[in-house]
């Protein structure tokens, strides 16, 4: 399952890069993200609440930035599970930032997400739509946050 999103942030490339690489900054933008922990050298742990209708669960994620070429590119590998391994998630995401004239930055991310286990049994079609919606919501939150100010200025999620 591919989730792809592209949006423009009215802020300088360097600034946007700093924002996106700051876990504390990004976490509140991720819908359902309850907490995130920076374990150092590009590794993070996060808990993300996910739900479709009556189905509610929390994915415990291990995130690792595997490749990085600041300020334009980062590759992120994610592994996670929910409900004591009832479902497992693996994702490989590429994040590319590029200057988009007049101090704006184009953010493009593409992640290949695989979910296996009970949630996967549920139906791929709905999961894709839900994932797309989460992607769009993240983009909107991040764009607003990045334009509002620097990472330190962000209030709680």
């Amino acid at each position, binding site marked *: 399952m591919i989730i792809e999103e592209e949006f423009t942030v009215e802020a300088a490339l360097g600034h946007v890069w700093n924002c996106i690489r700051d876990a504390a900054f990004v976490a509140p933008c991720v819908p359902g993200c309850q907490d995130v922990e920076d374990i150092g050298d590009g590794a993070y742990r996060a808990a993300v609440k996910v739900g479709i209708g009556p189905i509610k669960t929390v994915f415990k994620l291990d995130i690792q930035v595997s490749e990085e070429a600041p300020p334009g590119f980062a590759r992120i590998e994610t592994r996670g599970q929910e409900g*004591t*391994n*009832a479902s*497992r998630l*693996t994702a490989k995401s590429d994040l590319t930032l590029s200057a988009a004239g007049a101090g704006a930055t184009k953010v493009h991310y593409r992640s290949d997400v695989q979910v*296996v286990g009970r949630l*996967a049994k549920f139906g*791929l079609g709905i999961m894709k739509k839900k994932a797309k919606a989460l992607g769009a919501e993240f983009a909107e939150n991040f764009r607003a946050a990045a334009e509002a100010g620097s990472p330190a200025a962000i209030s709680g999620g």
Partner: protein
Amino acid sequence: MSDIESAIGKSPPRLEAAEKAAGQALFSGDMVLPGMLHGALLTSPYAHARILSYDASAALAHPGVKAVVTAEDITGGAIGPLVRDEYALARGKTRYIGEPVAAVAAESEAIARLAARLVEVEYEELPAVATIAEAMAEGAPLLHEDFADYFKIYPAPENGGNLMTRGEAVMGRGTDGFDEADIVVEGVYEVGAQYHAYMEPVSVLAAFAPDGRVTVWSSTQSIFRVQANLHEGLGIPMTKIRCVAARVGGGFGGKAEVSGELVAVMLARKAAAPVRLVLSRDEDMTSMRARHPGTLRVKTGAKADGTLVAREVELWFDAGAYADDSPAVLSVSLQYARGPYNIPHVHVLGHAVYTNKLRFGAFRGFGNPQASFAGESQIDELAEKLGIDPIELRIKNAIKAGDRWLGGQTITSSALGDALRAVRAASDWTRPRAAPAGCKRGLGVSAVAHTCAFLSAGAIVRLQGDGTVIVNTGAVDIGQGSDTALSQMCAAALGLDIEQVSFATPDTDSAPYNYGTVASRVTYTVGHAVHEAAMAVRAQLFDHAAAMLECAPERLELRPGGRVGVSGEPARNAEVSFADIAGRSLYAVGGPITGSGSFMTSDPLDPEHTKTSGLLDLGVLSVRSFGAQAVEVEVDEATGAVRVVEAWCAHDAGRAVNPGAIESQIHGAFTQGMGYALTEELLWEDCRLVNPSFMDYKFPGAMEAPERINAIVLETPEVSHPLGVKGVAEQPLVAAAPAINNAVSAATGLRLKRIPLTPERVLNALLAKG
């Protein structure tokens, strides 16, 4: 047929029908033993990964958990019917999402399932290949790095990467033969992966006795394949393995090889308690096996008068992560790629490729459905170009007794022409079909041949004290009615009524060897052994009767109902009953009367007739039976939906032992073939199966059943069998998809080349045609 053999040709209800109607039939998932535990699987979340370590501590600590097994508990070698490329559980590497990696035995199924998720497995993910193209690409990751060292019983390609098997056969002048053709048709056909959808998911009950002897009740098509795999995969000597067939809730090839038996035995051994493992539907669909999806490029050449002269086929099968029966399926598919026609110049080439998906194995038709869908669809295209009626073209080229099959085996009897004429007449072939508004109707035809003799089988017939007999063959009745049919054959040989014959539950402790309920073989192959065993009993009966009636055995005759009499003297005192003879043999002279029979199929190929390479030894597969089908379909032009209105299925049973059971097999097999043609397809996104449930994988229900399936049982006695019988259980499936595809062509003019013919594909084709 003298009245002595009256037990044949009748359709008594199945021996076990009442038990099943009452809900009393015991399937292995219904069985309970004292102290029994429940098993559950932990399966791989990765399509391709090295297994670095296991940590079962959390699982073992969970209350109610009695044992956890992983590959570290394997005490035997690799398994696999044709190449030993697999283990009881994933070992060292996992090669498809859903592959069993560990298993837990606990006091309840719920606890076992929860605890299975607590077994921590450390993986190192590897790149995976989801398709044939990816698997064969330069530098593609290898599933089986040390494939070359595996034990194999077929000639495998060297350093072919993910290429598991490559088979080729050339007959006559091969592709040069196309120079004799006035018209050539060529096309690429695609076939989807079909799931067996047996109603009973895989289930096993295993229990060790204190002396270390294990008894396994499982839903299987072969108690001897289970025994062999337990021996090879766990190193248990066969003296310590007893396999018993419970009632089986359908197999269709999916239970020809082992499914969960090895895991259940490992759990029972480690937990020192009986363990019952029953897969859920989505586990069965995700972890077990299905029919090979693939692509076939087919080319056929014919003279203007319709004489077929040349056929070329190149076939690629996706074989999944483990070979299972793939090399054999490929060999059989190639052998049928010529079709049931006298085409002199043939070149067929086939490949089966490893991919990181569940294994593809045996499924009713065994490679023939794929080859026939392509071949029989193309024959119709050729008929259209030649301006010859599709049935005429088939009759003109139909293979006859005395002709030789691809490979050189001689056809002993062929009813192909009769079958085609039968369906032509029955379907009123030339009458145009009126369709409701917005729909189009059409009639399509296909021809089919399939074998029914395969490998070996034994049989023991024993006279019992009251003069009745008991047949023991080890052949498992998976619902096709073999218990009843074999009992009828035994009754016929001894002039008994079927009520005077009982059938022993298949049990490796007592049964003679039998390869399995596969390849439509039971009626012919096991029937051979049963007849021989019964005749051995007959001879002993006559010896006793000769002494009791003081006359030469030659002057004796069997009399209906279990009597031996002096021929020509019908009087009462000139005969003795089987019971009298039994009494004499048990308590006076000679000892117990037991007859045994043993049969081996052997019809070696002729390398002079057909040059082959990379194929399995097909000499153990022979005696073809023939059939044809006409199908009327209705296509909804607004949605592309295809509905089968009626089908006429003529199949040659040689001599119908139980006509009713044969008709039921034709109904069921045709309907399974209809599902293959119209709705059934397992779908993957990369290497993940996306529709492992009956909610998302649809096969025909009562509403999809055609208005009528006219089963026409032809009887062209098979000269190579004492009772003239042949097996027909796979043919009606094989013929269905091409007949339906040709009917859709007749209705719409479309020439579709990919099944299933989903409404979406049909509508898009209709719109593209304009």
